[in-house]
Each structure stands twice: as structure tokens, then as C-alpha cells.
């Protein structure tokens, strides 16, 4: 080895588990910081004329708390979480039952719990908890992964909580649970026909609950939910709330053109034509204010995040890590796809937030915990590579000039 400073630092970083020097995946961190900054600026612009004033400072507070959580989590070896899988799963179930109990007490359906500082949404935190617990369960039954019973059991472990979340009602998060579980099974190596069968099953369930059953008078979902889910398929059919929101969002994004209208001229946002401009439709705010350039930048940052997570899946030191990364990837990608898809009129309205961009404490903390886990997987992979002497081969392109 030569004596250049870079080489020495790499040597130090990969020398042993006791002294990890490369604390973070720098590109993932870059994407995270970039999205948080954009989020804060976008929220500030879109809410400064609202009744309650700008929400940017609150979002910054969430980001700071989230960042601390992320750093803290990344310091631990996530592998030890396997031992607490039952506790984690139990906590997740308990958290998701809580709003139902409160709802029964107050006779109002709510998916959140009022805390002194913010409205805590247990289903959000439940996403990460489920991913971690499920990853542990999958690893436990790894040797019997080819069996149909394994697939069924594991899937039920996700569908149960999903059902709980659905009645809260939080259809969006429920679907995240299912998608994350499906992705983790797929990555773990569940036979393709099982995965295909599950996908088929879900498709039939969706068609049944959206189209067939309502037609014969059985309402699985509330009518407004069906309306929101199918509204994007016929954008000009009526002038109801759903199509109004979709149209206003499309107008906002489209009117941004190439480089955006700027803060002062973003009339779709400032005159409140855009509904939920700082939460569900934050991407439309970005699209209107900064145009294709801004929306493209945001998408690129997400793409960076997704790429780094994919890469992490291949370099995690164990299957547990790979599966957690897979679950988190599924969560991020699905939410991105559904939320952005909604704002540009190609996906139904599901109430799924855009990770790191939408305003909201629960969503922010959950995403930062997930990112902390990813960073932890990264750190552990580095350490493992260092001790095995294998990491340099994998990451040669990064560290050698």
C-alpha cells in the first residue's frame, strides 16, 4: 500500500470493527440533506401565507430530531435487533391498536394520537417496526423458505397489522405494509410462483373491493375511498372533490413549465387552488415553483437514495440487513411512486406522504429511523468488509483514485 493520505484513511477505516471511521454512506447522506433542504424551503413558501404561519421551523425541528435519531441508530449493530423481533412486532401491534382504542373512547375515527408536540401517527412508525420484525422472521425460517406454509405465515404477519391500519383508517400505510412484506419475501428468495400467486391474489382483492363488490352492494371501502382510488382513471368525468384536486395538482405542475414560476407567481399554491399543499401535494408545489428542473432534481435525489439502497442490499453483511434494506427500499419507492404519481395524475389518491418532502412529524421521524437503519447496515457492511478483507474489492472504484 502506498502512503498517500487517502489510502491511509481507507486503511484506518477498514481496519477493524472497533474503530469505524466511515460513518455514513456519503451519497445517501447528500440525497437526504438535499431533500430536507428542498422540503423546508418548499414548505416555507407554501405555508407562509396560511392562517397558522410558516410551518418551516417545525419541519426543521422534526428534521433535527430525526437526524439525531438517524445518527444514533447508525451507531448500533442492527443485527442485534433480531433478538427483539417479538418485542418489536408486539410494539408495532400495540401502537396500531392504540388509535382504535382512543377512537372507541372518543367515537371518532382517527389514525393519529395527539401528543404534546405533534400528532403522532403510529401506522407510520409501524412501517419500520414491521420491516425489522418481518426481516427477522424471514431469516428465522430461511431454510424452509420454499414451503408454501412459510410464505403464507410470513404474509399473514404483514397482513394482520395491515388490516389493523386499514380500519384506523389509513389505507395508504396499510398498502405500504403489504408492499414492503411482498418485496422482502421476493428478495429473500421465496419461490417465484408464490410471489406471483400473492400478486394475483392482491389484484383480485383490489378489483373485488373497488369494482365488483360495490356493484353488488357490499362496501368493503367507504365510497369516498373508492372515489379517490378510481378518480384518476376518469379525470374529467365529474367536478367532484377528487377530480378537482387532481386537476389543480396537474395545473400546478404543468404551469411550472421548464424552470418554474418562482415563489411570488406560484398562484396555484399561494391562492390555495392546490389542496394539502404542504403534505400530500408538496411535489406539486415543487413542480410549480421550480418547474421541470426542480422536479427533476428532487427525482434525481430520490433516485440516488434508491440506488444507494439497492447497492446496500448487495453489500449488507447478512441477509437480515439485506431484507431490512429491501423493506425500506420498497417503502420509499412505493411511497414515491404513489405520491408523485398522484400529483401528476397517473395514480390514485391514497394519502401516502412523500418521504422527506411532505410536512409531518411521524412521517419524518419514520423516514429518518429507516435511513438510520440503512446507514447502520452500511457501517456494519464496511466493518465486516474490513475484517474479511473483502470490502476493498467491492468498493475499489470508490476509494482508489
Amino acid at each position: 500500500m502506498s502512503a498517500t493520505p487517502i489510502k491511509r484513511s481507507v486503511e484506518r477505516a477498514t481496519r477493524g470493527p472497533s474503530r469505524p471511521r466511515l460513518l455514513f454512506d456519503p451519497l445517501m447522506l447528500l440525497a437526504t440533506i438535499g431533500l430536507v433542504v428542498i422540503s423546508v424551503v418548499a414548505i416555507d413558501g407554501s405555508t407562509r401565507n396560511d392562517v397558522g404561519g410558516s410551518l418551516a421551523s417545525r419541519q426543521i425541528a422534526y428534521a433535527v430530531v430525526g437526524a439525531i435519531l438517524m445518527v444514533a441508530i447508525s451507531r448500533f449493530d442492527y443485527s442485534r435487533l433480531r433478538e427483539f423481533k417479538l418485542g418489536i412486532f408486539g410494539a408495532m401491534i400495540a401502537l396500531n391498536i392504540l388509535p382504535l382504542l382512543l377512537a372507541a373512547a372518543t367515537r371518532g375515527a382517527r389514525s393519529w394520537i395527539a401528543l404534546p408536540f405533534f400528532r403522532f401517527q403510529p401506522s407510520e412508525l409501524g412501517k419500520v417496526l414491521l420491516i425489522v420484525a418481518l426481516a427477522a422472521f424471514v431469516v428465522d425460517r430461511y431454510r424452509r423458505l420454499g414451503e408454501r406454509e412459510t410464505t403464507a405465515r410470513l404474509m399473514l404477519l404483514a397482513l394482520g397489522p395491515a388490516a389493523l391500519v386499514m380500519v384506523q383508517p389509513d389505507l395508504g400505510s396499510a398498502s405500504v405494509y403489504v408492499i414492503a412484506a411482498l418485496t422482502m419475501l421476493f428478495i429473500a428468495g421465496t419461490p417465484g410462483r408464490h410471489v406471483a400467486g400473492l400478486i394475483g391474489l392482491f389484484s383480485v382483492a383490489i378489483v373485488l373491493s373497488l369494482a365488483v363488490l360495490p356493484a353488488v352492494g357490499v362496501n368493503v371501502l367507504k365510497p369516498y375511498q373508492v372515489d379517490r382510488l378510481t378518480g384518476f382513471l376518469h379525470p374529467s368525468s365529474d367536478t367532484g372533490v377528487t377530480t378537482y384536486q387532481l386537476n389543480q395538482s396537474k395545473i400546478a405542475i404543468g404551469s411550472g413549465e421548464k424552470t418554474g414560476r418562482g415563489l411570488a407567481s406560484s398562484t396555484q399554491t399561494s391562492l390555495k387552488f392546490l389542496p394539502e399543499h404542504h403534505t400530500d401535494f408538496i411535489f406539486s408545489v415543487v413542480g410549480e415553483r421550480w418547474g421541470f428542473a426542480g422536479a427533476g432534481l428532487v427525482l434525481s435525489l430520490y433516485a440516488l437514495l434508491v440506488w444507494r439502497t439497492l447497492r446496500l442490499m448487495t453489500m449488507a453483511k447478512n441477509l437480515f440487513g439485506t431484507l431490512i434494506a429491501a423493506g425500506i427500499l420498497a417503502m420509499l419507492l412505493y411511497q414515491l411512486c404513489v405520491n408523485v404519481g398522484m400529483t401528476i395524475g397517473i395514480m390514485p389518491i391514497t394519502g401516502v406522504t412523500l418521504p422527506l418532502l411532505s410536512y409531518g412529524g411521524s412521517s419524518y421521524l419514520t423516514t429518518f429511523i429507516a435511513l438510520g437503519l440503512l446507514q447502520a447496515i452500511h457501517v456494519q457492511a464496511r466493518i465486516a468488509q474490513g475484517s474479511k478483507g473483502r470490502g476493498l474489492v467491492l468498493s475499489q472504484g470508490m476509494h482508489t483514485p
Partner: protein
Amino acid sequence: MIDSPDDRRGQLSPQLAMRVAVLGGIAFAIFGIIFFRLWFLQVLSGDQYLAEASSNRVRRVVVQAPRGEMVDRNGKVLVQNRSAVSIVVSPTRLPEEEAARRRLLRRLSWVLGMSTRPRRCDFGSGRTREVKQLMPLQCTVDQSIGALPYADVVVKADARPAVYTYLAEHAQQFPGVEIQDAWLRRYPYREIGAHLFGTVGQVSEEQLRQEKFRGVRGGTIVGKSGLEWTYDHYLRGQNGWQRVQVDALGRATGKRLAETPPVKGNNLKLSIDLQLEKVGQQALQKGKQLAQSNGNPANGGAFVAMNPRTGEVYAMGSDPSFDPNEFAKGISQRRYDQLMSREANTPLVNRATSGLFAIGSTFKVVTAAAALASGKITPEWTYNDTGTWRSGDQVRRNAGGASYGPTSLVKALAVSVDTYFYELGRMLNVDPAQHPRGGPLQAWARKFGFGRPTGIDLDIEAAGTVPDQTFIRELQDAERACRRRERVPDCHKAYLDDTWTVGDNASLAIGQGDFLATPLQLATAYAAIENGGTIVRPHIGMEVLNSREEVVDRFMPKPLRRIEIPSLSSIQQGLLDSTTQEGGTSTDVFAGFGKQVYGKTGTAQIQDKPDQSWYVAYVPDEQRPIVVAAVIQNGGFGAQAAAPAVRQILSQWFYGHPGDAVAGTSASY
């Protein structure tokens, strides 16, 4: 295959690699789709969405132009504008759902203090006629939508501050309800001249189809009647507009993007003299009082004063009058019905142009002209009056049974000898079978302008009736139709075996029988006596003035026709004698007036009611010629009620003050 699920993993298995690759592929596809969709929305269709965003936030608001003012011949403002706040319903922005719309209109009714009880509501007319039970506000809105689907409906022209501030603060609960600045008409002199100006309102569907209103946009305020209607083109002005920014709730954000200011309409200078108009109205009251002191009910009246040479109307009034300010702020149906009722004595009717009356002896100049022109008499021809006139089985007497002995034309007019004119009526009668439209008497009545509108610049004018054989036939046809329709033996319109007789012609000769005319027609006829045979076209509009007070248009309507009246000077002499000579019917009324007044009394008998009191006079002053006609309904003898009123009007015109009203004593017709 991965063999160990334990912590440390060996080589990346091909299956995992493949499945991660599949996941990566899905992610790639998702990003690709989103990118292309964004490209499509923002780069390819950006213009279109930018336009939509603009139309989202921008609304065009019409700024109503104030109409031109109306001033009298001396520049005194008779009709002006005041700003007000109107509550307007914009049909296109109302909730689409029927029940939601009804709820909204019910709430609005409460706010506006209108009843919500369903009432009868008519739609359309003729074959498409439809009747529904709706609350008044919904009736108004739906009727307007039926006629002009997209035009805004003014539901309250002059809203109180409490009402419009409430609506402004609760705008969210009232989608489609707007608060607009508006101009309303104001009439500072209230009842004075109320019948002339007419009303304004939103242009109707019917008006939009008319040539007169070509190019007018729906919702524009136009003249509906009276001078407002006639001179609408000049008074209307040009509405302006503003483009204002609105938020998602449709509330203006206060930002104006562009505007075209409204252009006020031109002012209209009327030939009316405000002081004369006031005095005329007061003189009618005075005439009524005089009549009432003689025990007559005198429940209405009218007068016209105009320039006999040009037709410029100096003053025109009708009693009872009304306050047009009530109409300006939007009158309720109930109040309107009340004003139109017989109990209120129809104050909205302009009796000067639309009131049809028997005009009695004032018609005698026409009879005289007809007899002179047809060669039946000369001015010197004398009729020996015995107090009684006979023709066949017809026996008529003078008023009060007086007998005047040998009577020539001048005397006949001056003292108003009925028998003289009965005789002329007999002479002028023709065989009805040969002449269904009557003889020289009818022809001359028509020449003087009776039986047809004078063509004054107002929208409504009665034509009157010059009776003849055809008229009797038409009445009989109507009687027959009525009997068939109503299945009754007699409708009391006409006797079916009647035909035109000498008696009918004799009645016509003294302005009685079925003859009906308006005060304006009478004034026009006497104008022709004054000016030597020109039938002028009366008009009230005189000049159009722009904002810099420059005259941009002047109205001098051509006379309708000229008629040759033989021995006109004799007729004029008769009229002059009637105010100056001993025995003249109004000599005592005009005693000491100081100007030569050519006048004629009239006392028209009507069935079952006291007589109509008439007086018509002209003064051929070279600088200030004037002709005045006045009627006091059921006011008794002409000299006793109408003549004093005319004297006051003439006094105002020449001396600037009405002076005393001197009641005459003549009990002649």
C-alpha cells in the same frame, strides 16, 4: 444458493443478484415513467397548464358604467346617479346540485329578508308556459336563468351595509353570490316629472333580439321605459371591466391585473323647464282643490305645456304621481301591484299621453275647421240659437238651457254654443253605408292628429278614438265575440242593430260620444291653430351633451304634416274672445293676465260620473310661444278647475310665478 442465514454471508448468490436487479429494474421503470410524465406535463403541455392556472385565478368583473344624467332646459339635474351595492347571483357558479342550490337560496333569502314561502312562479309564455310553486328568490333566479342562462341576476339592487358585509364575511357559504358596486338612478325632485323618465333594468332576452339594443351584452343596465328607453343609446355608456385575481374560494385578493374604465353615458338635455313642471304639478293640485270645493271628486289630472311651433315639451305632468326613487332600488311585486291598482288611482299611468278622455267643447275648433273647409259654412254664417237643437227625433239643449240667439262662428267658440256645433255636426254627417270611415268631421279630426299617436319620444302613448261607422261595426263584432265566448245574452259593448246616425255626428261635433283623446293630442291640435296648420311632433329630448358639456346631438323632429285651415283667423278670434270678451267662457279666469290668451274650455260629460274639466290655451308670444292643455278628472266645468290651473302655468311661464288661481264662473261646456 445461500446456505447460511447467519450473520456472515458468503458470496452474493445469483438468485439474490437477479432479484435485486429486478427490483432495480422496477425502480428504473418508475423513475422513467415519472420523468416522462413530468416532461409531458411541464415541457410539452406547460403553456396550456399555465393558461389554465391563469384562468383559474383571474376573473373578469364587469364595471357598470353610470348612465348619463338628464337635465332640464336650464341645466338643472332631474335624473342623476348614486352608487349602491348590489347583491348578484351568478348562475354558473351556483351549486349544481338542486338541493344544495335550494338551501343556498333559502339562506340568501333569510339574509336579504325575503320570504321563503313558495309562491306562484310563471315561466315562459304561450305554449311553453309553465307554472311552479317556488320561493320568491328562487323564482327570480330561475326565471332569469330561463331567459338568459349565463347572465348574472340582480337579486337586491340596493343592499344595506349590514347585508353586504355579512355576505362578504361569509362568502364561503354563499358560492355564486356576489357583491357588486352598482349605479342606481336618483330623482332629486321625486314626484315632479316622474312619468317622463321611465325605468332602467337589466336588458331582457326580448330586448337583446331588437335592433335598438344591438351589441348590448347580457346583464347590461338599459332603459326599460320612458325617456330612458327612447334615448337609451345615448344614456347607456360603455361598461368597463376589471381582471381581478381570485383565490380558490373565488374571493378577490385585491390585486387588479388589468382594467378598462367604464365610460359614462352622455347627458340628455330635456326641453322640460323644471320650474314650470313643478308649478304645473302644483296647478293640478290647485285645480283639484277648486273642483272639490264645488263638490266634485276631482281624483286626477294631467297637463301638457309645449312650444306650439317646435313641439318642444316644456312641462308634462300627471296626477296622482309617484316617487320613482322607489323603482330605482327595486320595487317589490306587492308595492307595484298596489301602485297599479284602481284604489290607488293608477299613479303610474301618465295621463298626459296615455289617459283617454272625452275632450268636450275643446273639440269644437276641429268641427269648425271641418265645416269651413268643406264649404258648409263661412265665418259669417249665422245659426239662430233658441237653446234647443232638433234633428229628427234628436233634441239637444245648451248647457243650463241658455239660448244665445243669432250666433256666428266667433261667438259660438267664445261662449261655447253647443247648438251651433250640433248643427254643424248634422251638416257634416254623411251616409254611413257610403262612408264607413265617416265624413269631413272625422277626416279633420284625424288631420289634427286625433285617433293616432302624436309620435312623442316616449314608449307608451295612447292613440285615442275617432268614432265612425267602422268603429261601431268593430264594437259590434267585439260584442258578438264576447257573447259567444262568455255565453251571456249581452256584454253591453254595443247594440247590434246600431248604425252611425246624425246624433252620433252631433255628439262628436262637441267632443262627446265615443270620441277619446289624450291631453297631448289636444295640445298638438291647438298648436296647429297657433302656428297656422303645422302638426308638430312633440318631443322631450332636446340635446345630447358629452362629458365636456358639448352638444353632440340635437333633436328637432320634423313636423308630421301641414294642414290648410280656411278662415283660421276666425277660429283664433273665437278663442281670443273666449278669454277677453264679455260672456267668454274663461274671461273671468284670465282677467288682468296681461297677455293675449287664446283659450277654450271643455266640459266632457261621462256616464254616471261628474264631468271632466278641460282647458286648452295658447299664447302666440314671438319669444316664448306656448300651448297648454289641462284636464281635471271629474272636476266639473272647464272654467272652474282646469282653466285656473292653465292660468297658473301660463303665469309661471311668462312672469316666473304661478300667481293666484282664479276660478271661473262660466257654467258653459
